[in-house]
């Protein structure tokens, strides 16, 4: 176990370093001078030079990387250029909104997909099964922002309460206020989660042990919940983990449509202003969440099905991937 965690932590560190480097290189390549962007068209050359000096923009790349990592080791993410505030403080202010929204959406996904999957899996290929699948596939085919807009138009929701920034799980009225954005995120993913659970249940139904249970005289609901459902959870949890990770990193558009003061909007502002420290900070946070969630999925899967050894997880996962990857990893990028 300890060795496994160590191994995982090593992988995580390498992935993070890669990400930091990718962002560094991208920021070297993109045109645009943060000082000029901040000061606008009417600024004089002297003003810009003075600000550049203050911000340390023109330092050579190796020095920049060195300085950044020196700060990072001490837990200092640097100072935002655009907002003139510490990056940690800005992320700290924006993260609760994104995290609350993601968790809310995640709960909605589970609450909606589990009963639907159970119903659909009752009889494969029935009218009920087909219509549920058709409707969920359709929600998948609607571009996410379009879905958000349709939801807004139908329910005539306003968002001022959201942007007032009182939005986190602890605040009163959160459930009602965040329902629309959470639903906009959840709806398309319900289809994914449902389909995997349904497929897994159908798979399990055909196993010999199910027949044995029937022969033993166990009741239908007992078979469903104690045998089939439990065994179907492994692929389902894996899917949920991927969805959760994706929701954390991918709420940019939903935040834009619903005026939410979250990480996604902050990221857009940061890139537009060529605010390197802020962009880097947000990306690191998102990456950590994605990686940690994946790690948790492994742990939970082992808990559900003790036959899975953690050291085997890699090969186990690759088998799951056979089924999951086309559905999921693809959609992952897109729903952002």
């Amino acid at each position, binding site marked *: 176990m300890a060795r496994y965690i160590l191994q995982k932590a090593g992988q995580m560190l390498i*992935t993070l370093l890669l990400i930091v480097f990718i962002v560094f290189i991208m920021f070297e390549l993109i045109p645009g001078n943060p000082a000029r962007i901040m000061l606008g068209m009417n600024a004089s050359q002297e003003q810009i030079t003075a600000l550049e000096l203050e911000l340390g923009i023109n330092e050579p790349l190796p020095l920049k990387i060195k300085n950044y990592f020196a700060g990072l080791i001490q837990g200092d993410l640097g100072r935002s250029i655009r907002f003139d505030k510490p990056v940690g403080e800005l992320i700290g202010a924006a993260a609760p909104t994104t995290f609350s929204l993601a968790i809310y959406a995640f709960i909605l996904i589970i609450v909606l997909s589990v009963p639907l999957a159970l119903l659909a899996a009752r009889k494969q290929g029935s009218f009920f099964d087909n219509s549920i699948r058709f409707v969920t596939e359709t929600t998948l085919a609607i571009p996410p922002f*379009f879905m958000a807009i349709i939801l807004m138009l139908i329910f005539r929701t306003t968002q001022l309460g959201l942007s007032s920034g009182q939005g986190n799980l602890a605040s009163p009225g959160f459930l009602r206020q965040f329902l629309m954005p959470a639903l906009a995120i959840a709806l398309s993913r319900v289809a994914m989660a449902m389909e995997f659970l349904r497929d897994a249940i159908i798979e399990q139904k055909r*196993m010999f042990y199910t027949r044995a249970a029937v022969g033993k005289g166990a009741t239908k609901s007992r078979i469903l919940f104690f045998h089939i459902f439990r065994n179907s959870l492994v692929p389902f949890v894996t899917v949920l983990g991927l969805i959760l990770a994706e929701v954390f990193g991918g709420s940019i558009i939903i935040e834009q449509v619903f005026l939410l003061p979250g990480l996604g909007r902050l990221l857009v502002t940061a890139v537009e202003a060529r605010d390197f420290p802020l962009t880097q900070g947000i*990306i690191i946070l998102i990456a950590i969440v994605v990686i940690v969630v994946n790690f948790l999925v492994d742990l939970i899967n082992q808990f559900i099905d003790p036959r899975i050894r953690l050291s085997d997880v890699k090969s186990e996962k690759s088998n799951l991937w056979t089924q999951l990857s086309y559905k999921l990893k693809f959609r992952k990028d897109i729903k952002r």
Partner: protein
Amino acid sequence: MRFKRKDKNNQISFAPDVQRAYYRASSINKGAKIQFRIGFVLLAIPLVLFLINIFYRPYDTTSMNMSERFVTPDSKHWFGTDNYGRDIFTRVMSGLPLTIIISIGINLIGCSSGLLIGALSGYYGGTVDYWGNRISDALLSIPAILMGMLFVATFGNGIWQVIVALGIMFIPSYMRVIRSGFLEYRQRNFVKRLQLLGASSGRIIWRHLFPQIRTRLMSAIALGFANAILAESSLSFLGLGVPPSQITWGRMLKDAQGFLFQAPWSAIAPGLMIVTLVLGSFFISNGLKQISQQRSLA
């Protein structure tokens, strides 16, 4: 050792169970056929519209007519007109080729690079696999929108920029599909035999392993095609898509966004087109997936 472990795993999730395979073979074929039919019907709708468009265009796609702006859908303008008085029906029809070209381009980049990295990772394993995974993890942890923004900031808005930025973000998903397929088959006895016979790695990969995962890959491509259309529209929504002089459905949705309350029809037409095309591709992908599952069981 490795061999043993794998057997155990197979037992956990997808035991090759004779009875199940028999049951499935009959039902899957039927299911796949229905999926294909619906898929092709849905894909045919925009395609027919485009073919009509080649021979007959009711209105010009670019010339503006201020006296006819925001006309509600009627017999003259089936889908109404937009904020410049251009006929939306005509624009929707002529928006198809670029939408599809972009989608194909994205998948071409994603699939070819994914194939290369995935095949090498899956076949050789070890260090190659380790670094392949780290790169794909890193790419997966970077939001696609960020990649789009950085690309557009560097190279400007354009068709190529959209294709390359999204193409890169599509690599990991293809890589995973192909890698897992190769992992599955490289342990099979026929590969061992080929290796003993002295066949080169390239030959084994290309002539023997690749055909095994072809259907699976096709299914992934059909899905990738649909997802690329969705991704392009998302990029366009944030103003990172193609420039305004080009017509794609994503671009049309973006333009309609500012007038959603005055002229909701200008968003509905391109929106419906996207849904039709994407849904069609989903169905075909599902059909292919069922066939590939059936094959790996047989």
